[in-house]
């Protein structure tokens, strides 16, 4: 198990869902996400005839890598050291936090800039550094907005999808205090221009830059980041130390393997053919380089990944965090990311979060699915998400997770279903009764024990005979 600063809980989930459904602004924003990303991904796939073939190859690359992960990690480490960098293994989130803090303190860091990194959120890195008196500046525009709001991301690639520009303007007016009051912040352009200027100062003053990694490449000892803004690049180029925090399953063997996966990543997540910037970092600045960091450190995080490797959920380790499953999920598309209460929301979060915090706390996530299967269909790494969610539900049931009422109802139904004669006797009596209770109208407009359902829709009522009864008395004419 991992230690994770998450507030995943059943109570939290139910409250989060209720809040999300009642939030008209959020509903409007989610509709835009759905339309935008879904349409764009389909268009991108249509423009690349080799898409499905590449998907098969990407899956094979990851499966091969995972089956040899120990060896690829060792090869990777050798290459990083050869290029002048250092590798630090972190078995747990706490280990990773301490390693990064130690490196920052060794560097005498007072200000750290950060590129977008889900893993750094997973381990609660920012709070740990700030508690030690180090200022942390998130540089991805969405993350910067979240930071000044004290808010959490609601989507892994579009983190402030839940906010409109008026709210963001208020945040900027409040947080960028050194700028003149009453300045115009009424357009998206004005907000971006201001953020650029404010964060430029951070980029230039930072002592240490921390990024995540979309990929680690064993062949060359490289880390790869993809951005559209260029913030990751300014983060990893300007300060004197560059720290990469990446979980171990980000590994791929070669540059060619990276190419295959990169062809799928942006197309699946945002529908772009490629992100504006795809950057390969290898070691620190070399002798004669006029810019670049003098030190390069990679923190390799386990935090539950090795456990996943050995169990039923290994396929989840193929995830490249593209966001396609979130974009296509009808549940995510209705409640947004905050309701999940986890760094990782949506279908991929429904599988990964229980692995990190335990199914007991996270049971609502894999249960919040109708198994429509869209996530698996669009996943570029062919991860069988519904099947994995079902496995979690089985584990949850075996541990007595579902509420007593649910378990009892299922047990009663199972008791009858395993005894056909009892089952037929019961349905033979109940079906005509239910039909009569519906008053011959064919539907129930309200039911005392199904209030949540019948509040907004009618429940169809039986017509009066069971299927077996109807079939027994069916006229034997020539109709097959």
């Amino acid at each position, binding site marked *: 198990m991992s230690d994770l600063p998450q507030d995943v809980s059943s109570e939290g989930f139910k409250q989060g869902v209720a809040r999300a459904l009642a939030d008209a602004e959020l509903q409007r924003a989610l509709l835009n996400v759905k339309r935008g990303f879904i349409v764009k991904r389909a268009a991108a796939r249509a423009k690349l005839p080799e898409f499905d073939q590449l998907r098969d190859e990407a899956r094979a690359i990851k499966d091969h890598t995972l089956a040899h992960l120990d060896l690829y990690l060792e090869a990777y480490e050798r290459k990083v050291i050869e290029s002048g960098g250092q590798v630090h293994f972190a078995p747990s989130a706490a280990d990773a936090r301490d390693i990064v803090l130690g490196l920052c303190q060794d560097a005498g860091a007072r200000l750290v800039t950060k590129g977008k990194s889900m893993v750094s959120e997973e381990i609660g890195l920012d709070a740990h550094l700030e508690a030690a008196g180090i200022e942390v500046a998130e540089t991805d525009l969405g993350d910067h907005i979240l930071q000044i709001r004290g808010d959490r991301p609601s989507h892994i690639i579009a983190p402030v999808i839940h906010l409109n520009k008026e709210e963001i303007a208020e945040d900027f007016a409040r947080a960028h205090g050194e700028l003149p009051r009453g300045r115009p912040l009424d357009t998206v352009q004005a907000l971006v*221009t201001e953020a650029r200027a404010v964060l430029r100062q951070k980029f*230039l003053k930072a002592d240490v830059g921390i990024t995540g990694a979309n990929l680690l490449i064993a062949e060359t000892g490289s880390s790869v980041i993809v951005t559209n*803004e260029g913030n990751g690049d300014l983060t990893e180029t300007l300060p004197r130390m560059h720290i990469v925090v990446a979980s171990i399953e980000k590994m791929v063997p070669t540059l060619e393997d990276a190419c295959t996966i990169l062809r799928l990543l942006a197309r699946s997540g945002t529908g772009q053919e490629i992100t504006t910037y795809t*950057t390969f970092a290898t070691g620190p600045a070399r002798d004669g380089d006029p810019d670049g960091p003098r030190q390069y450190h990679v923190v390799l995080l386990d935090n539950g990944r090795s456990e996943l490797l050995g169990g039923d959920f290994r396929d989840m380790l193929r995830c490249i965090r593209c966001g396609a499953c979130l974009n296509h999920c009808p549940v995510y598309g209705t409640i947004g990311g905050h309701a999940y209460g986890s760094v990782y929301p949506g279908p991929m979060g429904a599988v990964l979060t229980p692995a990190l915090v335990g199914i007991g706390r996270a049971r609502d996530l894999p249960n919040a699915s109708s198994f429509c299967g869209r996530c698996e269909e669009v996943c570029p790494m062919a991860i069988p998400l519904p099947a994995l969610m079902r496995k979690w539900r089985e584990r949850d049931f075996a541990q007595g997770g579902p509420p007593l009422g649910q378990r009892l109802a299922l047990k009663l139904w199972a008791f009858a279903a395993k005894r056909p004669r009892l089952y037929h006797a019961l349905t033979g009596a109940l079906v005509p009764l239910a039909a009569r209770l519906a008053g011959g109208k064919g539907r129930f407009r309200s039911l005392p024990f199904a209030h949540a359902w019948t509040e907004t829709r009618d429940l169809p009522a039986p017509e009066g005979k069971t299927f077996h009864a109807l079939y027994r008395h069916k006229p034997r004419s020539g109709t097959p």
Partner: protein
Amino acid sequence: MKASGQARATVLSRIRAALRLTGKQDGAREAAVEDRLNRHPRGTIPARALAGQEALLELLQTMLASQGAEVTLAATPEDALRAIAGGLRAHDIPPILRVGTDPVLEALPWETRPSLERRFGPAEPEDRAALSRAQMAAAETGTLFLVSGADNPTTLNFLPETHIVLICAGDVAGSYEEAFDRLRAIYGESTLPRTVNLISGPSRTADIEQTIVRGAHGPKRLHVVILG
């Protein structure tokens, strides 16, 4: 140091336990890994990346333009310099360029444009325009490869508002894999310089209300000049 050695051993042994290794397959496993690393086999290359050179140049331009870059064709080095100077003038940018020691850029006929000033070295915060050379490109998505070093310092790609990139037509490959092979030919196998930037347009963000805005943190303008 002892603690870090232990951490390393812990993670690796957890992985080996998870993979249920018995030691019997060790030789085969190591051979498989070494083979893949040495041969680095290619996967499927998109058909669009396998076209002839003219089609690839066409594709590079189309992709870059659709991704927000300005693209100019220059038949000669004089034309290239004219396009560069013209681009600055058109956007009211003073004729000052931050540049590295790239020999191809050095060989442009600067003496024909004495008003164009070059400042050498890494980018400074006040620089408004920088000129780099892309040593290779992958036409498949309009992607330029810029490599760190004194020839083309990385900060030139990100600090100034305007980034001008020169690429020689002969250096335009079709696929990423082809571009990386050219990189290997220059810099060696199984190694890369500090930074390789694959750049496919000017900086942008859509974080706020899914509205696309240029110049989020990197350059607002990317001007690509294809020479030859």
